[in-house]
């Protein structure tokens, strides 16, 4: 049985499955953790439990295709087809793209998904001086924290009420829907709408952190349902790592129960 994703959800799923199946965990990164650091206590705890339960690891390895009964993996060992009776997909989530929100306009520099913005900010790249964050959830909070030292003016835009904004900001625009980005080469404005009214925010960076979607990047397992695939991608923010692990275990509790155990 193959588990794709060595974040908390994938690790917890692997630990749950290990007593009844042979389990191999894949992740494109060379260490477990996913969006958490590899030395996060939750990650080290779950990874140790997996190893103790007999889980095998193929880290630093990207799975690019799933066909029922086998998967195509690319990693340090080369490119190879590997047999797998079932795929557990724990690929995490991503913010909605401009097309999915939908926000119209050309592809502009400075419009970034929150995970990319966070990585750049942590690498000391200044994202902009007038930054707009779309959304108020965990991605938005993480992005805000990442750019905290950049002395940027941060405006948070939410479609709903402002109740969910639990982090610091310089301005808050709630109840407005983003509809378009504008600019020449680089973003210079974000247009919002509410009840037929329009508002244009002057900005040089827009961080997409709204409407989380499941991240799906394995051909053959992108659209749900896919034969032989169980998705471990909770729709909502699951809170602490223990809660995320518990939710993942629940999602795979029935997987492999009716098949011949190892």
């Amino acid at each position: 049985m193959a588990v794709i994703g060595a974040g908390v959800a994938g690790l917890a799923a692997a630990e749950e499955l290990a007593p009844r199946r042979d389990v191999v965990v894949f992740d494109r990164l060379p260490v477990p953790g996913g969006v958490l650091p590899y030395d996060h206590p939750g990650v080290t705890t779950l990874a140790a439990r997996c190893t103790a339960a007999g889980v095998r690891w193929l880290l630093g390895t990207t799975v690019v295709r799933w066909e029922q009964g086998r998967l195509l993996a690319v990693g340090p060992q080369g490119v190879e087809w590997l047999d797998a009776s079932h795929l557990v997909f724990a690929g995490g989530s991503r913010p909605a793209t401009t097309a999915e929100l939908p926000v119209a306009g050309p592809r502009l520099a400075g419009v970034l998904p929150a995970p990319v913005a966070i990585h750049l900010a942590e690498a000391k790249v200044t994202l902009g001086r007038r930054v707009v964050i779309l959304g108020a959830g965990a991605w938005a909070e993480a992005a805000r924290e990442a750019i905290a030292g950049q002395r940027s003016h941060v405006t948070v835009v939410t479609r709903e009420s402002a109740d969910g904004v639990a982090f610091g900001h310089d301005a808050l625009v709630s109840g407005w829907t983003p509809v378009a980005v504008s600019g020449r080469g680089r973003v210079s404005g974000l247009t919002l709408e509410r009840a037929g009214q329009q508002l244009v925010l002057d900005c040089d960076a827009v961080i997409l952190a709204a409407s989380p979607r499941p991240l799906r990047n394995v051909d053959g397992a992108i659209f749900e349902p896919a034969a032989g695939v169980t998705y471990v991608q909770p729709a909502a923010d699951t809170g602490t790592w223990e809660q995320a692990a518990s939710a993942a275990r629940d999602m795979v509790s029935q997987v492999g129960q009716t098949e011949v155990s190892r």
Partner: protein
Amino acid sequence: MKVSSPVGDFPFEPLRLKAGPGHLTLEGQVGAWPARVEFAPGDIVALARAAGARAAVPALAAVVVVSLARRWISHGRG
């Protein structure tokens, strides 16, 4: 050792130090990936310059090691 990158932080586990012609190679693992760091004499000097006087002694020691390694290799081949 910890290595930071735009896609996250990773551990670097040193496994072997090898002397090559004109450089030292530190071989190790970044998680599941094999990795290596090559030091030429100029890198040691640059490291010492970046770190200031505090690094002068270990940097000098490293230069000596590289020089000895080069001499050892050239004698070994001769």
